[in-house]
């Protein structure tokens, strides 16, 4: 029991540099699915460990060992005693007891915050999607060039999907003009993969977290990394039906057309110095998401070997299993 709090704290604190390292690593592009699993485990493990460490710090060390239910049980016991007005009993008063109480409260606040943020983000997403579907049903129309998709009459190049039970794939008239039939088919295959595999559900917790930790660079990099991995996953699915070159030129064309849209002040993305200077990077050029995806399509690296995949999956399982064990298993 005495080990539980330091271990949980170490998992929570260690998750942050680990996320930084994972965001910077190059191997995830070789096996996006395994990398996404690791990201999910890292996020869930961090949440459980952080809540557990705070709650465990506040649990009464004298009694925790005898209580069933690990850290969670001990923290609940403290909470229930507070509710009954007995706090820590007559023998536990003073600044130390206050500190423990604050710690348990902080753990509960963090847990509530994380759950609430997920619910709020889901609700916002459902609202935004309903508005999308309503507007599309008034404005968009079908086109034989893109079977199963809706066309929106606007000259800018855009292609996206609205995930959900009543999903939609939308292609702008500008994209229809820009791409040849083979490239359009590749775009549709990519979007269908998103919808079929519900990639939006993978990304949702990370965008939700970003709404609270917007100031935190690691949260931003995590969301960016997972978003890119999800795109790579959809690219890989499209490759099962379409040649890589069609998808690559579709990406290049739509990406290159991006600057033709008058961008609002909100969209002003800082141009990374040297992003366009490194002409030696070959067909990829630049370091942006699109360039990375194109380079990956045109010069595919072999997937990770089976032992490496096993290592990644094993790490993912440990990241979740360790905090769960300390939270719920009595010692």
């Amino acid at each position, binding site marked *: 029991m005495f080990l539980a709090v330091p271990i949980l704290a170490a998992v929570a604190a260690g998750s942050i540099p680990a996320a930084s390292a994972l965001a910077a690593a190059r191997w995830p592009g070789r096996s996006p699915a395994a990398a996404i699993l690791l990201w999910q485990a890292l996020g869930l493990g961090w949440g459980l460990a952080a809540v557990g460490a705070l709650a465990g710090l506040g649990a009464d060390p004298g009694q925790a060992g005898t209580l069933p239910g690990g850290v969670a049980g001990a923290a609940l016991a403290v909470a229930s005693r507070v509710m009954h007005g007995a706090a820590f009993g007559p023998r536990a008063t003073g600044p130390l007891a206050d500190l423990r109480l604050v710690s348990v409260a902080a753990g509960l606040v963090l847990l509530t915050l994380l759950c609430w943020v997920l619910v709020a983000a889901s609700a916002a997403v459902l609202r935004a999607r309903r508005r999308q579907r309503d507007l599309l049903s008034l*404005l968009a129309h079908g086109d034989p060039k893109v079977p199963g998709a809706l066309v929106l009459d606007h000259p800018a190049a855009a292609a996206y999907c609205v995930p959900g039970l009543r999903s939609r794939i939308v292609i702008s008239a500008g994209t229809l003009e820009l791409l040849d039939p083979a490239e359009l088919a590749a775009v549709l295959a990519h979007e269908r993969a998103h919808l079929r595999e519900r990639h939006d559900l993978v990304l949702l917790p990370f965008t939700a977290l970003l709404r609270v930790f917007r100031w935190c660079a690691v949260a931003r990099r995590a969301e960016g990394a997972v978003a890119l991995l999800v795109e790579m996953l959809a690219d890989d699915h499209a490759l099962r039906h379409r040649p890589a070159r069609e998808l690559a030129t579709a990406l290049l064309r739509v990406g290159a057309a991006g600057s033709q849209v008058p961008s609002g002040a909100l969209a002003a993305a800082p141009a990374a110095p040297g992003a366009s200077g490194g002409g030696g990077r070959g067909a990829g050029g*630049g370091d942006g998401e699109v360039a990375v995806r194109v380079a990956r399509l045109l010069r595919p690296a072999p997937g990770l070997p089976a032992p490496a995949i096993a290592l990644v999956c094993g790490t993912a399982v440990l990241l979740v299993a360790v905090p769960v064990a300390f939270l719920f298993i009595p010692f």
Partner: protein
Amino acid sequence: MNRLGELERAIMDVLWETPEPLTVRQVSGQLTERDLAHTTVMTVLDRLAKKGFARRERDGRAWRYRAAESREAYVTELMLNALDQTGDRQAALARFVRSVSGAEARALRRALEALEAREALTAPGPREDAPAG
């Protein structure tokens, strides 16, 4: 699309084409489908008002309806979302290409040109941009 969706769309088209507010009777008169019941048109207009796409105002004993926003404004709203330019990053949509900076777009254009030039060299097949004369 279902029947109700088609009607909503046809009625919004009428509202978008007319700058001044219309009564239910006027809307019915401008629909290509003429034999619709008055109450049907009224119900659809009410639905559109509830969704926020139509505004209604009293005019004597009748209600007059107009579009809340122009068609262009709604298309722009959809496109700003599609191009991730609303500043509110959320997982509501999955975009083929997320927002691209100007410098990035220029780099991608160069990459595309390089790719096409290289392929024209290695495989001089029939291409539409071959010099005609």
